[in-house]
């Protein structure tokens, strides 16, 4: 018999079915104390389901969960909290309009305790002036009175009563204690944080730190990170990796869900792999390489290298001249005098740190936001005053950054979503009535061509589909619009390696077919691999234009932070 290992968490033979469909099929996960355990799998492989079961959001159909060797039953997130399991969700669960401190203590607020605390008697230096002595007299009298009352309340047990009442009824919060505790934790784990800032004012990286602090404040031992790096800049990712290492050295155990190989090899100790709901195995990260891992995940060999021929650009499709976009709320220009062009048969990438005006630039181009001045020429015609519908008809396709906010109507079915944006075209409507048959056929074509997986085909509810498949549907829809210009904002956000490669191939295929592609990406690898020209944006301006074959990540990074490049003033 093998020596019994000490696991802090064991999930054994977990099976979960949703109305007959197995999301997890006999999955086991064993977490050692003090390790970073990577959970790897394609989109829809059942990672999120597994973590939701651990976090008490779902009840498993079969299987058991052991914590420190004891079988437990986690019925809801409160139970998970009881067993010290914490989770950083991919989309943060923070309250935007209140301060960082309040966000950290939310739900577990320390209540004020009333008790007698002996204080130091105020002292007076020798030779003080008359007025100082008078003030001292008042200070001393206040000292005796307050201490006396406090002591009296303590003796009469009134303080006990007040504390009890506060705990049960009044719920006055002891912010002083909370602040001390949070500061102590942030010092221990080197998590710099500004406690009084509002969540809406701080960066995404900072918000993530708030989420981590939130978990630590609850004294959680098992920490789940669900794709934490999807929204971070390279620098912030490095920072996060350091923090994670710190956490494990302090004895916390981490389950780390990610698709990025670099991160897995940077911090991971062991890796469990899921494929289509089934458990494939657990490997020591030190024993494998990137290709082996991705093969294990997908189940067959995929090549991570992109097969890209040099670009052969011809006519200018999109020509942007002196574009300025104004922010009405913050009363500043978000996009400052930007000019560039995109030609047929090339991929132009706008790189930069999130929040430097890329999103606004795209909103301006696609018509979601109005522009202050400048010209947008599409195939030579000025479309800057066109409505979104006319821009679409003029040959603009747009894969939006936020698929839930813009890209999809989540309550509509898949076929209805695939027709979105084309609902008025002759293909899908006759005299204002919907042509259901044509729409269904078209949707089926896209589902097949772009491998959109869902439970009920065209009739499946989009809300219930996994993020990767939602994205595939959007990409299929926009590519099939067959416009001259394809604007793709973060097209591979949150997708697994296989899907990313496939989308990259599709984009390159479109380029070779003579489309102009404008790509916005925050991921350095994507920027370097996919694009032919790179425009780096910093603070609303285009800081520099680079040829992707003649540059590297370091140089782009310098442009991104504004340390290099032309100054417009």
């Amino acid at each position, binding site marked *: 018999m093998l020596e019994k290992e000490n696991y802090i968490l064991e999930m054994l033979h977990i099976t979960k079915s949703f109305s007959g469909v197995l999301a997890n099929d006999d999955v086991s996960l064993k977490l050692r104390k003090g390790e970073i355990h990577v959970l790897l799998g394609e989109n829809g492989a059942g990672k999120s389901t597994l973590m939701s079961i651990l976090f008490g959001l779902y009840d498993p159909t079969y299987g058991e969960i052991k914590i420190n060797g004891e079988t437990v039953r986690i019925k809801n997130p409160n139970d998970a909290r009881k067993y010290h399991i914490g989770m950083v969700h991919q989309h943060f669960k923070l309250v935007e309009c209140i301060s960082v401190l309040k966000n950290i203590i939310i739900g577990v607020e320390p209540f004020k305790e009333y008790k007698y605390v002996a204080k130091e008697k105020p002292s007076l230096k020798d030779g003080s002036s008359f007025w100082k002595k008078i003030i001292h007299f008042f200070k001393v009298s206040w000292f005796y009175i307050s201490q006396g009352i406090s002591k009296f309340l303590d003796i009469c047990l009134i303080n006990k009563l007040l504390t009890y009442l506060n705990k049960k009824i009044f719920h006055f919060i002891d912010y002083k204690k909370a602040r001390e505790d949070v500061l102590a934790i942030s010092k221990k784990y080197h998590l710099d944080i500004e406690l009084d800032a509002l969540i809406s004012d701080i960066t995404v990286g900072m918000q993530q730190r708030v989420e981590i602090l939130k978990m630590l404040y609850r004294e959680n031992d098992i920490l789940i990170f669900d794709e934490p790096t999807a929204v971070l800049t390279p620098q912030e990712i490095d920072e996060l990796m350091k923090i994670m290492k710190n956490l494990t050295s302090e004895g916390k155990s981490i389950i780390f869900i990610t698709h990025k190989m670099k991160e897995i090899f940077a911090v991971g100790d062991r890796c469990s792999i899921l494929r289509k709901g089934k458990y494939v195995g657990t490997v020591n990260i030190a024993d494998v390489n990137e290709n082996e891992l991705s093969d294990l995940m997908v189940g067959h060999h995929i090549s991570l290298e992109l097969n890209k021929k040099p670009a052969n650009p011809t006519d200018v499709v999109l020509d942007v001249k002196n574009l300025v976009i104004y922010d009405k709320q913050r009363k500043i220009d978000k996009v400052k005098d930007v000019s560039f062009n995109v030609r047929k048969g090339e991929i132009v990438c706008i790189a930069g740190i999130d929040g430097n005006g890329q999103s606004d630039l795209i909103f301006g181009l696609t018509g979601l936001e109005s522009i202050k001045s400048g010209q947008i020429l599409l195939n030579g015609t000025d479309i800057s005053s066109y409505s979104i519908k006319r821009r*679409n008809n003029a040959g603009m396709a747009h894969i939006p950054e936020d698929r839930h906010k813009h890209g999809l109507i989540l309550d509509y079915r898949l076929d209805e979503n695939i027709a979105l944006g084309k609902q008025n075209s002759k293909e899908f409507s006759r005299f204002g009535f919907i042509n259901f048959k044509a729409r269904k056929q078209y949707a089926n074509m896209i589902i097949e061509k772009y491998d959109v997986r869902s439970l009920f085909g065209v009739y499946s509810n989009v809300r219930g589909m996994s993020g990767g498949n939602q994205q595939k549907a959007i990409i299929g829809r926009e590519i099939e619009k067959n416009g001259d210009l394809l604007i793709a904002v973060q097209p591979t956000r949150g997708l697994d390696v296989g899907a990313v490669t496939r989308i990259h191939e599709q984009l390159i295929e479109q380029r070779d077919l003579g489309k102009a592609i404008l790509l916005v990406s925050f991921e350095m690898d994507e920027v370097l691999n996919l694009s032919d020209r790179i425009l780096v944006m910093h603070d609303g301006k285009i800081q520099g234009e680079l040829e992707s074959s003649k540059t590297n990540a370091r140089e782009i990074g310098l442009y991104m932070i504004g340390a290099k490049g032309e100054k417009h003033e």
Partner: protein
Amino acid sequence: MNNISIFFSKIGHSIKHFFKYLFKAQNENNPSYAKKFIRNNGVQSVITSLICILVGLLVGYITLLIINPEGAASGFQTILLNFLTFNRGELELKYFAKTLVNTTPLLCCALSVLFAYKAGLFNIGASGQYLVASCITLLCSLVLHLPWYVCTILAIIGGAIMGSLVGLLKAYFNVNEVISSIMLNWIALYVVNLIIKKSPAWNDSVNETFNIAENASSSLLPTLGLNNATGFAYFGIGLFVAIFFAVVVIIVLRRTVFGYELMATGFNRNGAKYAGINEKRSIILSMAISGALAGLGAPLFYLSGMGIYTCPSVVPQMGFDGISAAFLGGLNPIGAIFSSYFLQHIMSAGAKLNTDMYCSQTADLIVGVIIYLCAFAGGLRIFVNKLSNGEIKFHFKKKKNRPQMLKEDK
């Protein structure tokens, strides 16, 4: 003897097999027919509404019991059966027709509410739109003696303008439609009262408007002999026009690109904008159509000849009952036809409650309780849906640390 027993056993056998067929899953991916049936949206809506009605009736009955236990049984019977207690065929038919005429404006308001709701707006101002349309109807018929279809069209336009006002405020100034429509209700009420009282349609001697049936018979809705058939003089084509529009609403919402765009705006305003839908136009148009539907109720009711406007001092309940009817009908136009009839049935029955046992407000109270519970249909619907998908399970016996089933090792 033997033959008969075999016969019955065969029938029993086939019934058993029929049920087995119903409840047995076809294969792994296809659940049984019974499950499919229960997961059907329409079936769920009907179940939900029926549960709501039952609970509402139960609570109403309990209220009656609390107020006066003696008359509760007969009172409850009165409310539930209404005219069916008359025991005379022709009388029952007559009152059935009367209830149907009264149902017409309620159905229109229900359609109005549900149309706006499908487009993501909550139209509480159906009453106001109905009032404006009533005013136009009364003036057109009593003063101008226009034919019924002209009156109807003008009234619809009035309602639509009233509705689009709310839509404009929402689209361009981001005013919450609930607030603006409820305020406009009161504005409409006072303006309409003012206009009607100053107009020749107002009969000062009885403090109400002139009777349309007597003074403007040229404006009455065609009856096509229905009045003679039912024995109720005012029963015309009004209800059928309303039902026709219910069908039109279904077709517009489900079958047309216009409905697709409206509903897309309702579900996700940003997504609709992204898809090239003019979301401001969508909002204004859907409110205008909603107002037009509410406005449709007024001519269909007043031009039946039955309606008399009395210049009430409060906003009529019609629009608010329309909300209940819309939700009770599962937000489906066809469902709304039945639910608004049911509500009207209960409401008119309330007036017939025995006044010796119960004061006159009791009827309103009971009806109010039932309508109130009917409005829970929306919330209950989610529960029924989860129940049928097996997401909620009942654990009748609570055990501590129930051991989890381990998957058997093969």
